[in-house]
């Protein structure tokens, strides 16, 4: 995972609540395994009915085209768990989303990919949003995860909160699977305990196949 320590970029205001992952990364007609995440981001909102770019959509405005910080409202990323809604941000150079709140799964997906989710606390959050609107893309803001501060034009630095563990994980770009595999022995002993306490949990066996093929009953069966 790409570590995150500090990012300086233009802050684009998309001040709406409940922006969902269908809006962020819509399922499109034509797709393949190598999707164009850059083009996917807000695909519909960015376009007018005839398919041309909508010049009024914030990320289409020249001063926000290279935005690195997206500023938004409550419950950002609601809906589907699709991770493309995070990958499409990164593909467009957006490294920070500052929202009043996040949907749970979306926030997890951000942490998995080095996209910093900043929760804007009530009073300071409103001040920050007002500043972003006033600055209007004319100068960048800096989001520093080490000092947990946002700095930029027209006002003092703003402190933000993030759980210490999430912060460490982002700063060090830690491999999430690697972190867990440090506990591989505990996982194995849990499995032994579960086999004794609730054996049915450790055995997902198709009783029809087991009856047909008794000697293979503990092997995972598969269809070719």
């Amino acid at each position, binding site marked *: 995972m790409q570590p995150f320590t500090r990012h300086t970029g233009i802050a684009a205001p998309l001040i709406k609540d*409940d922006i969902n992952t*269908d809006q962020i990364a819509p399922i499109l007609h*034509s797709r393949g395994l190598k999707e164009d995440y850059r083009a996917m981001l807000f695909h519909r909102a960015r376009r007018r009915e005839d398919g041309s770019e909508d010049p009024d959509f914030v990320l289409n405005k020249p001063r926000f085209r290279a935005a690195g910080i997206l500023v938004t409202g409550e419950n950002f990323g609601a809906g*589907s768990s699709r*991770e493309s809604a995070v990958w499409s941000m990164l593909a467009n150079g957006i490294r920070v989303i500052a929202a009043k709140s996040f949907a749970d799964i979306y926030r997890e997906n951000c942490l998995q990919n080095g996209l910093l989710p900043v929760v804007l606390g009530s009073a300071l959050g409103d001040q920050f949003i007002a500043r972003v609107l006033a600055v209007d893309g004319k100068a960048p803001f800096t989001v520093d995860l080490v000092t947990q501060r946002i700095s930029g034009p027209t006002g003092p630095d703003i402190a933000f909160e993030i759980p210490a563990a999430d912060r460490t994980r982002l700063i060090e770009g830690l491999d999430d699977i690697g*972190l867990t595999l440090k506990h591989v022995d505990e996982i194995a002993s849990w499995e032994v305990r579960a086999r004794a306490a609730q054996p049915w949990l450790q*055995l997902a066996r198709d009783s029809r196949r087991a009856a047909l093929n008794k000697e293979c009953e503990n092997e995972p069966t598969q269809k070719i």
Partner: protein
Amino acid sequence: MQQTLFDKIWNFHRVAQRADGRDLIYIDRHVLHELHAHHAFAQLLKQSRPVRRADLTFAVQDHTVATGPGRDDETNPSGSAFIKAMREGCRSNRIRLFDIDDPEQGISHVVAPELGIVLPGATHAVPDSHASTVGGVGALAFGCGTSELAHILATQVMALKQPKNMRVQLDGRLAAGVTAKDVALRIIAEIGVAGARGHVVEYAGAAVGAMPIEQRMTLCNLNIEMGGRSGFVAPDDVTFEWLARRPFVPQGAEWDRALRHWRTLASDEGACFDREVTLDCATLEPQITWGTDPTQVVGISGRVPDPAALDPGRRAAAASAFGYMDLTPGTPLLGLPIDRVFIGSCTNSRLPDLQVAAAVIRGRHVAEGVVAMVVPGSTSVKREAEAAGLDRVFREAGFLWGESGCSMCAGGNGDRGEPGERCVSTTNRNFENRQGPKVRTHLASPATAAASAIAGRIADARQLAPGSA
């Protein structure tokens, strides 16, 4: 100390606490689908990490499969690569796949419980936000993203911060013609799209106890639409009877032992919930959404609300929804002309859903100009429905009868409405453009969807004149 059932399941499954303070929660059953599987398999391959427990992992082709007769890998060209990639990943990792032509293929959230793959008190993960559907049998399920999916494949655990406890108490007896779908829509309307964020919800109360398992699954399915991390109903005799003899449940003496344990699965008397919500269901009528998020709900006899009567925080969203939905405040929902009806999805595609809809349309015909479609939640459901003659009822009424899959819920397989169409849908999200560009979705129960198909307008199934047959 008294514990909630969620606490008990969580504590049993807690393997360790990671250095970053997250709990490692063992996942008893993991089900993949083709939209995420490819990326996760590719990630593991790149990192040379094996799948830890292929025998506890299953895969179902559901999101992108075509629903027309004689479908195959290529019928939906935009799904083809995903279907083949998951097949290859399952082959090389020895994961049991319910492939596109498998007699038990279907939507993962329908297939896993109907085969008995998920069990009461078991943990379950699916890379899909509607994972908690299986909470209907008392399983604790988490939706996840692609990276988390790879994490579970490699470790069989999820690294989670413990969510809070919430109880939704559903009192009273549902009136005839009112279902779990109507109850769920009303709850979402009351508490909002983020009302259960950070919480695992236990649904309890007389109305829940009286629900058959399929309705409990509908109730738990919609939990994510109010932001809940998971949702479930504590298992009871209805659950055990429903699960008994399904192919993947423990058999014989093992079943008896499991059953003894499952009977203990309940929140302790006096256990503390961080949040409690109570809803009296006795006075509820069928519900329907009028707007573009699942909180924008009214009783079917109601009208599109006046923004002045709404909570100030909801006015902006309402104003935007009026335009998209081409509705004005004060318009009655009943009688609105419609173009399309969809009955299906992990929310409402199980056999009793189809039976209810078939009972409404039997002997009638879909209104002229309305395209109506039924997509069973699994190939098993489809087979059972056909054995009961339901496919004939639907076809004779002018419905299309599809092969199983997610279909028009998110349109990932190409099934979608035309721009500007108004659609009554038994699915879970009425977001803009979800069922096709500019399609106007009204979420409702199978009975309401069926009645509306017949009337050509939004209709209350309880008020339809008796059919001719």
